[in-house]
């Protein structure tokens, strides 16, 4: 195991985040506050409660995941796309690192950043609402699982992308719509049929509901299936990235 190598990549990536630390922190804080003002206060005053949870608190898990989805994909994809773009990838490719080690370094760093952002949003939310957490340890583990899965996903996008605009396509055109339609700001229970059934084909529904369960101890869909979907997503991303490294596809000529 090349621990020095993994650590070198991890520190390199963390230093890259460190250079933009203020924007990295300010963006989630400001965005979350805006959501609270618009959804929490403006709409929340009409809605009051969803499934027995005050609306302001109800949207927090969804807000955290929304940020984690997009930040994870963006950071992890840039992490590997930049060396491809500037040509410095030669050094990574020529280093005595296994695919898993390389992924640990890059995705580990991106996951750390995503977790930090998730926790900052969590802290910011406390300024606006009372936020009980029923299962704090599970909540952190769930956050870690989702952040790692989406960072892996982002990493794969970064490898496949042929231009900067391609890095934006998946988060903007797929993930954000699926999140908004995935019950981030409402309970799928309030949807009329057939939309309620259609929604159940959206994997993000399970991610958000599983996470929400760790906060409020209740969820629109089963906790088991939510965890299962999250885990399956993580494994699929891992398998995909491993295949790319094994074959050198899009990385090596």
């Amino acid at each position, binding site marked *: 195991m*090349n621990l*020095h*190598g993994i*650590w*070198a*990549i991890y*520190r*390199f990536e963390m*230093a*890259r985040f460190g*250079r933009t630390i203020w924007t990295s922190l300010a963006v989630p804080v400001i965005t979350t506050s805006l959501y609270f003002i618009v959804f929490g206060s403006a709409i929340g005053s009409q809605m009051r409660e969803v499934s027995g949870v005050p609306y302001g608190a109800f949207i927090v898990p969804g807000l955290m995941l929304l940020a984690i989805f997009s930040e994870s994909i963006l950071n992890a994809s840039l992490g590997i796309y930049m060396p491809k773009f*500037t*040509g*410095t990838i*030669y*050094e*990574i*490719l*020529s*280093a*005595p*690192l*296994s695919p898993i080690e390389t992924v640990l370094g890059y995705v580990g760093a991106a996951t750390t950043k995503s977790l930090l952002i998730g926790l900052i949003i969590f802290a910011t939310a406390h300024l606006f609402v009372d936020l009980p957490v029923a299962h704090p340890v599970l909540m952190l583990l769930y956050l870690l699982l989702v952040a790692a899965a989406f960072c892996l996903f982002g990493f794969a996008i970064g490898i496949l992308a042929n231009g900067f605009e391609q890095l934006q396509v998946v988060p903007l055109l797929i993930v954000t719509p699926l999140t908004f339609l995935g019950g981030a700001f409402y309970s799928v229970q309030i949807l009329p049929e057939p939309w309620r059934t259609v929604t159940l084909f959206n994997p993000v529904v399970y991610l958000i509901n599983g996470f929400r369960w760790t906060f409020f101890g209740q969820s629109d869909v089963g906790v088991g299936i939510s965890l299962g979907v999250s885990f399956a997503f993580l494994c699929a991303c891992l398998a995909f990235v491993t295949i790319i490294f094994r074959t*050198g596809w899009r990385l*090596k*000529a």
Partner: protein
Amino acid sequence: MSPDTNSAILRLQGVSKQYRDGPTALHSVDLDIRRGEIFALLGPNGAGKTTLISIVCGIVTASAGTILVDGHDAQADYKAARRRIGLVPQELATDAFETVLATVSFSRRLFGRAADPAYVERLLRDLSLWEKRSAKIKDLSGGMKRRVLIAKALAHEPELLFLDEPSAGVDVALRRDMWTLVRSLRDRGVTIILTTHYIEEAEEMADRVGVIARGRLLLVEDKAALMRKLGKRELDLTLVEPLGQVPVELAEWSPTLEHDGHVLRYVFNATDEHTGIPGFLRRVGDLGLHFKDLETAKSSLEDIFVDLVERER
């Protein structure tokens, strides 16, 4: 182990590369690099030099063939193989916002070595980069960037160093420095493989030279032998009166007549101590042959390659 395996730090057997919807960049290359030598890979643009190096370093996947680095298979045992290799790429690719010290320390750890500030300091001093250790790479000149890349390649104390066109975009002074560095590395036991377009550079630096063109390794020879082969020059005398045949008095130099007898051509070897030119010209004068122009020409590297390739056929 036979002494042969012992002395080869790098062994290529039947290494081929066919780029996806691209050219066949390498045709079954066999090559042994001896431990501790400076080997120059000489070839024109597009010959396959960078491809060859990239395959050994793991940046490009070979289509066929095996590579042994110090006895370790570069594919099956890639970690052991790569730990021994340092690469200075042809293109200047650097992390613009990193400092010199950070990027060199990064390279060392990336290759699995524990931090060693004393070694890194010595390395940066050797390359005259110590004063610039806190500078961001984007603020350095091109020559300095190249030195940073050399420092990165040496950061993990490799046994085998690849320099892909070390003198591209480098001024004379820096080139001298680089050659001094290469020699001192060799004295420390590092094996060096460099690529170049210039015969002069191969001549100055290398112990052995391999000539590559169109993806084929045409010959591998000790430098001295190759220089004799490649060092041919022509002396052309444009005569006032054309000659029908070469005067017997000049037979000693075996010149030829060109352009219907208007040009008397003497081929000599520029690397010989005695080129024979003074004696030849004296004899020409004694014979009363008048010439209106005198010109020496060296067959260009390109000609030589074409020559070699043609000869291969």
